[in-house]
């Protein structure tokens, strides 16, 4: 019956005709006084006030709600706009049948051209970008961790592709459950830590927003339990938490095909809620942090773990490579640490998933029973991106058709293919942003000179000197000088967890500023990631420097380098170099306090007292030259 309320609201907003044919279309009531309970003649003021607030929340929320259609207007799902420049969150299973191009309708009655940015097949998320405005209405991001059973909420979107007039359908409901875990279909479309609601979520609602009563975005609707009653809502819909979506948002903006994370160990649960490690990869970060077979998992992130589902719930909301707090107990101690999550799939596996989902014959989500009303029971199905009647249309669209569209496409220059990317164009956009930030604060000339940093070990009198040139790197701790080639031969030092890694980081810093990330090696914008000990998320760029991968974390507002991690492989700890104080010096950013850590353990903290440029030749002449 609540949908009747929604219909009322829709009318009073005067945003066009109310959705028709919805699941609960209701005629004006014909009251037969004898049959109803005595009711107050006027609703209480609180009632009217609550109604007013709800109408306002829905009015605002509806503006950011997006109808997602194919370029020919066929098919249809939903989305929600979260940035003024037009980045839209939706489901992977909504965007994938459309390939890389789609059209988005807003309730201003206009259609906007859009392209896909990043996709996350495992988490069933995608980011698409609308073009044509820089003041798109955006949804206010809420806090999904505060969602509780018994709160009211509403979904907005394009169920059954009713929004042909581009006005979203709003359905009201109750939060039925929180922190639900819904098994993946195969290895993709896993819904972890999701929100369950009885607000009507139907085919076409997929990718659309779930709002709390205040109109704040708390989730992305994407899945329903249907079973034997056909593909219409039976009071159970699931939304991906907005926390998970925002964890992945910048990763999705990178235009990559994203993977999800695994812990590197599995667990077994006993009846008393004790969760113990039943298997652990020796190559995993968890193993390196001391976790062993039989240890009891107490907390992950900041959540108590009492069941396998809870562990999966927490794991599922983070991108791989993120570090997550872990508390575990072994025979003697309770240990708090942080573990780096690892990739769930191999790149080739992801490629196959994406190929299967979006190219050639666009097929329905896995296990889609189509429109058989009495299909065999499959408790959870991803709600399809478009309704049954859209399928026929979609099938006609083959790869050839898509190619043709690309040729005449106004947004053709906003789409670039590259292996591992859903749209490489967006990676360039983000890298440009990072470079722009760097350039705005740094004027490092191309120089033949050697950069010399001299300082002392914090808390000691030991002197440290680092000299970097284009050919060699010098590192001297006290009276123990070391010299390494500037381009190669770093791996053994890093794997032996040497302090010389400090020089590699300084060299990376220098190159980042002198030539920029693109000239250093293959540079990929990863997204935003957390750093141990720092609040917030940092832009993350991965650069292949010969045999070493440098991961550079920069502050989102200033572009200042916060940390450089140097990876030799995925089986050993990277060198982590944190730049804890940075000074502006003649148009250059110079690190003032540098900390080197391996596997969370600080090895050296240096206060820089002097930063100079010396003619490189003078330095080189006095030293044994490595290589070349």
């Amino acid at each position, binding site marked *: *019956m*609540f949908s009747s*309320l929604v219909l*009322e609201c829709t009318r009073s907003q005067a945003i066009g005709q109310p959705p028709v044919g919805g699941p*609960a279309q*209701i*005629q004006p*009531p014909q*009251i*037969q006084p004898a*049959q*109803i*309970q005595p*009711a107050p003649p006027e*609703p*209480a003021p*609180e*009632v009217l006030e*609550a109604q007013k607030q709800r109408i306002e929340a829905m009015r605002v929320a509806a503006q950011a709600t997006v109808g997602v259609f194919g370029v020919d207007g066929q098919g249809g799902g939903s989305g929600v706009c979260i940035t003024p420049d037009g980045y839209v969150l939706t489901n992977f299973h909504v965007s994938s049948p459309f390939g890389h191009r789609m059209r988005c309708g807003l309730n201003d009655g206009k259609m906007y051209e859009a392209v896909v940015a990043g996709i996350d097949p495992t988490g069933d998320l995608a980011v698409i970008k609308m073009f044509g405005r820089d003041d798109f209405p955006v949804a206010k991001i809420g806090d999904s*961790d*505060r969602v*509780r*059973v*018994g*709160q009211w909420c509403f979904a907005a979107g394009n169920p059954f592709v009713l929004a042909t007039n581009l006005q979203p359908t709003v359905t009201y409901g*109750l*939060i*039925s*459950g929180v*922190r*639900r875990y819904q098994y993946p279909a195969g290895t993709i479309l896993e819904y972890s830590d999701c929100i*369950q609601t*009885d607000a009507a979520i139907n085919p076409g609602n997929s990718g659309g927003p779930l709002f709390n009563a205040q109109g704040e975005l708390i989730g992305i609707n994407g899945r329903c339990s249907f*079973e*034997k*009653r056909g593909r219409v809502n039976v*009071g*159970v819909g699931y939304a991906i938490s907005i926390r998970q979506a925002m*964890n992945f948002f910048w990763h999705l903006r990178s235009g990559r095909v994203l993977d999800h994370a695994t812990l590197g160990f599995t667990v077994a649960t006993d*009846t008393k*809620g004790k969760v113990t490690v039943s298997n652990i990869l020796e190559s995993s970060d968890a193993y390196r942090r001391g976790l062993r077979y039989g240890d009891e998992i107490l907390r992950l*992130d*900041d*959540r*108590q773990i*009492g*069941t396998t*589902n809870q562990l999966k719930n927490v794991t599922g909301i983070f991108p791989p490579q993120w*570090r997550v*707090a872990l*508390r575990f107990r072994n025979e003697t101690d309770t240990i*708090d640490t*942080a573990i780096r999550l690892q990739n769930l799939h191999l790149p080739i596996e992801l490629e196959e998933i994406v190929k299967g989902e979006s190219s050639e014959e666009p097929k329905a989500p896995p296990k889609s029973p189509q429109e058989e009303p009495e299909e065999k*029971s499959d*408790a959870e199905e991803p709600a399809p991106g478009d309704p049954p009647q859209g399928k026929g249309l979609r099938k006609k669209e083959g790869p050839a058709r898509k190619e043709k569209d690309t040729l005449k496409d106004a947004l053709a220059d906003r789409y670039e293919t590259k292996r591992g990317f859903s749209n490489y164009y967006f990676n360039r956009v983000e890298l440009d942003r990072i470079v722009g930030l760097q350039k705005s604060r740094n004027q490092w000339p191309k120089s033949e000179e050697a950069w010399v940093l001299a300082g002392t070990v914090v808390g000691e009198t030991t002197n440290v000197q680092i000299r970097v040139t284009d050919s060699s790197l010098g590192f001297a701790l006290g009276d123990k000088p070391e010299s390494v080639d500037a381009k190669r031969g770093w791996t053994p030092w890093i794997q032996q967890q040497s302090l010389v890694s400090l020089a590699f980081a300084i060299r990376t810093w220098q190159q980042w500023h002198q030539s920029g990330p693109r000239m250093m090696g293959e540079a990929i914008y990863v997204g935003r990631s*957390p750093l*141990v*000990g720092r*609040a917030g998320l940092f832009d993350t760029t991965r650069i292949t420097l010969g045999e070493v991968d440098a991961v550079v974390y920069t502050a989102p507002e200033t572009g200042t380098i916060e940390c450089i991690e140097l990876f030799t492989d995925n089986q050993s700890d990277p060198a982590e170099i944190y730049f804890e104080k940075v000074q502006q010096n003649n148009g250059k950013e110079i690190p003032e306090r540098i900390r080197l*850590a391996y596997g969370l353990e600080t090895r050296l903290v240096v206060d820089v007292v002097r930063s100079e440029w010396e003619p490189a030749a003078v330095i080189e002449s006095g030293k044994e030259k490595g290589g070349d």
Partner: protein
Amino acid sequence: MKLCVPIFLAVTIAVVLANGPLPSLARGPLDACEKVEPTSAPSDSDSIGADPLRGDPLHNNAAIKVDGALDTAAIADTKVPLEETDLEVLLGRAERSVVKLYGAGGARGLESYQSGVVIGDGSLILTSWSTVLDVDKVRVVTFDGRRLDAEIAGVDPQCELALLRVPNSGLLGFELDPQNIAKIGQRVFAITNLFGIAAGNEACSSQKGVVMAMSPLTTRKGAMKTLYQGRVIVVDVMTNNPGATGGALIDLSGRLVGIVGKELRDEQAGIWLNYALPMDVVKNSVDRILSGQANMAAANTQAVPQPHRLNDLGMALIPDVIPKTPAFIDWIREDSIAARSGLKSNDLILLVNDSRVDSRKGLERILSTINRGDSFAVLVQRGQELIKIQVRP
């Protein structure tokens, strides 16, 4: 369809009900729930909201300190109290008195799970009588993840209800108030484990709804396959999904107003009915089950020297192939006691003298306590009908 008029009525009244803040909660039966200290509460939900930075999804790493020294304990200490609405509190409490039940099934579209409502002092669980219960011990999983074994205390085939006994569950039960009759237009909430979504220490699912009608199922006789043909509360919410049967329907005060019924589909219209058994029916049924038990306990359960035997009665049951083979009559000898009493082949024997017949063996056991010369009453299910038959020797 007959139910349409009440839908319209419900809408009008529900608009009023739904808009307003909750009326002051008479926290009668649920108050006691506060005393329940979960042994291992679903505490992840308790500890969330601790980190003030968590409000901003882009700043969610504050829990990690330098060198990975994580002070999760500190997080728990700096809890920001959540302002819970009355409804959150209400449902949070009521959820604790609804349990997840697991038993037989799992094949051919038959679920092996359903819901149950803890009643009274917490040692009884009320649920639907279904094939899920065709096991020796029904597995009960409580809101806090504890797994208990329940045995069937008794069944009421007419209402398709069953009572399970769980000693020392530590759970607090709903009061069964036969006066608490649902009214059309009333706001209700269903708490069930529909689709078996909740597992372990996860809470059952809550759904909002409105009472659309109070209507006897008999009017639908023929269209709906149901043994129970009395009055039901019809709700506007899709409550009666797989696994939801046996769950609670509560009102805005947190009091029980109904027990969610089995899945029921109108064969002609293809429409699924969402309904619950009203409290007066439930209370009567529970009383019947409990008194039936008492009768049984009081009655001589000792075997008598000259009992009834199936062969002497002139009937045979289907072969005893599984541990709990249902007491289906395979054939009836012509002109036998059974035939004269009106028993037929394919009848399923449910009750003998108000004692539940849980299996073929159970029937033989009960018959062994009845003197050959005494008559006895049986309740059989024939198709979708329940028929009482007096067997006279």
